[in-house]
């Protein structure tokens, strides 16, 4: 079937025009960043460096795309317009005159809109799972590095056990419809959620142990928020309806946290072992501070540099993992617009049409590239200190 198209220049201008809310938001962030770059510490100094600035802009670009997805995308991700099946980029729908900027896929869905909505899934799960993995790894790595001995032996053995397992096999065992039917994801989610609650509760109680008037409300708030997350994530009965994950999404979330927390554990453990020997730790010990106060308020702040760099790289790595899951059709629904699933769908039909494959591929690559550039720039800036 022949379509009228708007030509390559039209496509380029059309795509740029569709992203208008993103450009406005980027301009605001950039202007504010430049104005205040002297006062913003490392974040401000990223503006001086070409690589850091481009990394920052790519990450913000995808963040704003995810936020404004419903304005940017002209169609719904699942909307099918039968006549446009396999339409080439820039094709015009003869009935309504709507333009399919990057063409339509095998099921006559707009490739551009799907790519834009795919960013929502990726930018929701990847950073959240990384944050969880960071907290779990930190909470286990700090005592392992600080106390050493038997705790360290057991925890390191467990971490190495998970790390020795090929990621792909782990996903095939943990993210299947069969596992979603069992309570395993809920149990694991409940287990992982203990760590953030413990983290904030310990953080608050070690700091304000001398001020019971402050401590009580803060602890209460931590526990209430923790219970709220428990209700939403583990039991899927959030009273406010804000936090809710479908069983398959919870399954993916749990598997990704499970796969990446041992890596964080190893890094935190190594950093703690090194920082433990510093004088300010010895000073705190002499003052009679408890071990958790020293770990959370003396060691952790001084380990933040490498941890922030690792977090950036890890969000990118998690994005790649999510793509792998999508590529093997694990967890996410087959019609889900996320980039990995889209790559799987289109790579099978590369011989016939290449245009549905390229947008998700380039989207995923650019986002991970942005994170890697950002991590590299932060590392460089941290080394200058």
């Amino acid at each position, binding site marked *: 079937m022949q379509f009228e198209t708007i030509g390559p220049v039209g496509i380029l201008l059309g795509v740029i025009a569709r992203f208008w809310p993103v450009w406005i938001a980027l301009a605001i962030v950039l202007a504010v960043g430049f104005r205040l770059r002297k006062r913003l510490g490392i974040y401000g100094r990223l503006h001086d460096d070409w690589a850091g600035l481009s990394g920052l802009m790519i990450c913000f670009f995808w963040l704003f795309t995810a936020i404004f997805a419903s304005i940017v995308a002209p169609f719904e991700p699942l909307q099918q317009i039968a006549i446009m099946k396999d339409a080439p980029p820039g094709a015009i729908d003869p009935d309504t005159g709507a333009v399919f900027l990057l063409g339509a896929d095998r099921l006559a869905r707009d490739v551009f809109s799907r790519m834009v909505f795919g960013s929502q899934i990726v930018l929701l799960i990847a950073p959240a799972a990384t944050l969880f993995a960071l907290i779990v790894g930190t909470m286990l790595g700090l005592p392992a590095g600080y106390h050493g001995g038997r705790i360290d032996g057991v925890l390191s*053995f467990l971490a*190495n*056990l998970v*790390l*020795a*397992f*090929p*990621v*792909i*096999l782990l996903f*095939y*065992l*943990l993210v*299947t*419809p*069969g*596992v979603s*039917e*069992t309570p*395993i994801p809920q149990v694991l989610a409940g287990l992982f959620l203990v760590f953030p609650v413990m983290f904030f509760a310990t953080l608050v109680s070690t700091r304000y142990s001398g001020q019971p008037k402050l401590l009580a409300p803060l602890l209460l708030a931590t526990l209430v928020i923790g219970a709220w997350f428990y209700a939403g994530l583990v039991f899927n009965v959030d009273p406010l309806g804000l936090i809710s994950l479908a069983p398959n999404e919870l399954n993916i979330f749990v598997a990704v946290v499970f796969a990446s927390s041992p890596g964080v554990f190893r890094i935190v453990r190594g950093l703690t072992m090194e920082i433990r020997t510093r004088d300010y730790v010895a000073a705190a010990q002499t003052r009679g501070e408890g071990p958790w106060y020293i770990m959370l308020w003396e060691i952790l702040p001084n380990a933040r540099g490498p941890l922030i760099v690792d977090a950036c790289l890890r969000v*990118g790595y998690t994005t*790649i993992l999510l*793509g*792998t899951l999508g*590529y*093997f059709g694990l967890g996410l629904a087959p019609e889900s617009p996320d980039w*990995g699933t889209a*790559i*799987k769908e*289109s*790579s099978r039909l*590369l*011989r016939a049409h*290449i245009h549905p*494959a*390229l947008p998700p*591929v380039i989207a*995923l*690559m*650019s986002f*991970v*590239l942005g*994170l*890697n*550039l950002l991590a*590299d720039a932060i590392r460089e800036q941290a080394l200058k200190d």
Partner: protein
Amino acid sequence: MLSYIIRRLGIMALAMLCLSLAVFYLVNLEPNLKRLAISQLNMRSSAQELETWLEKNGYRQNFFVRYGQWLGVMPKEPTLDPVTGEAVPRFSYCNETTAARYSGILQGDFGCSTKFRVPVWQRLAPALKATAILMFWVMAVMVPVSLLLGVLAGMREGSRTDRALSAASITTAATPEYVSGVLFTVVFASWLGWLNGSAASATNQGVSFYNFTLPVITMALYGTGYIARMTRASMAEVMTQQYIRTARLKGLDFGAVVLRHALRNALITPFTVIMLQFPWLLTGVAVVEVMFRYQGFGFTLVEAAANNDIDLLLACSLISVFVVLTTQLVSDVGYALLNPRIRVR
């Protein structure tokens, strides 16, 4: 040294035991067993028929008894024909004998593949060979290229080569196999038509430049940037050492200093890095083999997992864990041997 290796081998055996138990638990979850029974009978079987099939083939025995049987510390019992009461083999296509016997991993029996209807080893041996061929070519491309790039960049820190390499390696680190595979196929197979976008013919007709280049470069790309970066960092560090300056001040020319003094010490880190790449390479193998339809280990693993082929999946996980742990051991021992400053107790 010897006692260190023996201790490590002991930990390795313990790790494999723990992991195989975990995998055994996961593949024997109730929904997975149901799926297996459905795939062995047919979609319309009643719950009763599925239950009978599972019961008959011994899937309803005690969990630990079955794990023991798989391991080879409990005897495998034949099934009894319900009509005649005679002992019959469980799966006829795997020529399992009709007498009870100890036959598990410890005896070298990997069990029976329910998906491919052959003994597991008969399926895995050619797959492992195919993957070994793929890995050989990947290593043959990846190791020399990445070492060369890393050494060239690290020789003169901050030079134009150095900055170009840094940019390139950050880009390749952002390109997982399923992305680079699609990009390469689009460029080299769809547009230029130079190479074959499928390696299916490599399995039976043998490897050729036409059908094997795309899988090899797809897999090599992701690792190349990473190893090159590590080599660069290691080389740059060595180049700042006192003995390099001494050699330069003695009047040796730059090439001789790099080749004779720096290279040997600079290559210790990349050696361990290459060895520790294996867990990731296994995932890459699965992606690349599925994408290019090459019937190797990764392809078999994905098929086994998708069909819940219990014995085959267990064998696959055991082999991959073994490979990962062995390369870790080799990397640690090799590091100690190469670096005279490190002594293991």
